[in-house]
């Protein structure tokens, strides 16, 4: 039996691999595509089968709120992309400020979403409520998909905001630096995915008339 001493990994303490880390993040993003892609396919099929009902139901949605939220998410995508630029240039303070702005914008998004959902629930359009039960099958499918897809998306917004919170903490503690910013990049990739999903949800749910 050999003793477990005397052997040291050639690069021990020095085994970060930014490319592998980024590739892992991309592979994870592809699994997210399976999740949302499946829902987009469900939407497509039911839309093909219930075109008139989907059209009618979509008029219940508030385009002004949807547009505002789209722009809020786009701006937040820019702030996190800029925070990567900042940390790459060694500007820790600016990077943190931009990350905090991203979280603030995610909260704006969630507040607007809250008002949209409350209005629909107030009108009884949440699955199970009276107005929902009185809808035609096509319309109820539309609202079911509306709540499911925007709800799942909102969950991703919350997870993304927590992820960014972790990045802020680590940047503050100097564990993310100008030489080691993979985590900031990966949080950025995740946040952009959240934005990408919304880029397709917005026209499909709000703008189909």
């Amino acid at each position, binding site marked *: 039996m050999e003793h477990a001493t005397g052997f040291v990994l050639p690069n021990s303490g020095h085994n*970060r*691999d*930014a*490319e592998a880390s*980024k*590739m892992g993040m*991309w592979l994870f993003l*592809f699994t997210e*595509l399976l999740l949302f*892609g499946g829902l*987009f*396919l469900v939407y*497509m*099929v039911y839309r*093909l*089968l219930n075109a008139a009902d989907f059209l009618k139901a979509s008029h219940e949605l508030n*385009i002004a709120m949807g*547009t505002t939220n*789209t*722009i809020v998410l*786009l*701006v937040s*995508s*820019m702030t996190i*992309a*800029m925070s*990567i*630029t900042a940390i*790459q*240039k060694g500007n820790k303070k600016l990077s943190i400020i931009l990350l905090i702005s991203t979280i603030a914008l995610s909260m704006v998004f969630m507040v607007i979403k809250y008002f949209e959902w409350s209005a629909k629930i107030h009108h009884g359009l949440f699955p199970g409520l009276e107005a929902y039960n009185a809808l035609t099958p096509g319309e109820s499918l539309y609202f079911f998909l509306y709540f499911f897809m925007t709800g799942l998306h909102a969950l991703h917004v919350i997870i993304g905001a927590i992820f960014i919170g972790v990045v802020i903490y680590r940047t503050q503690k100097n564990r993310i630096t100008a*030489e080691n*910013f*993979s985590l900031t*990049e990966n949080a*950025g*990739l995740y946040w*952009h995915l959240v*934005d*990408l999903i919304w*880029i*397709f949800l*917005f*026209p*499909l749910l*709000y*703008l*189909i*008339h």
Partner: protein
Amino acid sequence: MVNDHKQTEGHSLHISSYKDHLITLAVLIFLTVLTVAVSVYGGGMGAVSVVLALTIASIKALVVAAYFMHLKFDHKMYRYMVMIVMFMFVVFMLILSLDYSNR
């Protein structure tokens, strides 16, 4: 626009400038306003408006992927991976819609 290029361990570095990000955002907001305007004022176009909305959304997605997600400047491997996955998704979508429209 001048971009810094430097090599640190594992990061092949292209640093996007703040200005580049601002321009990207301006393009994305312009496309958003355009798609809303087409939908609100272009009523009665039927199927054309759906195709137009999805085309604009796809252009926006490409811009986000290329500039914000840095695909344009990263190793080409990422670009190929995304292209393969999107290709498979589009094929899946086409086959599924063929199936349902011929029942």
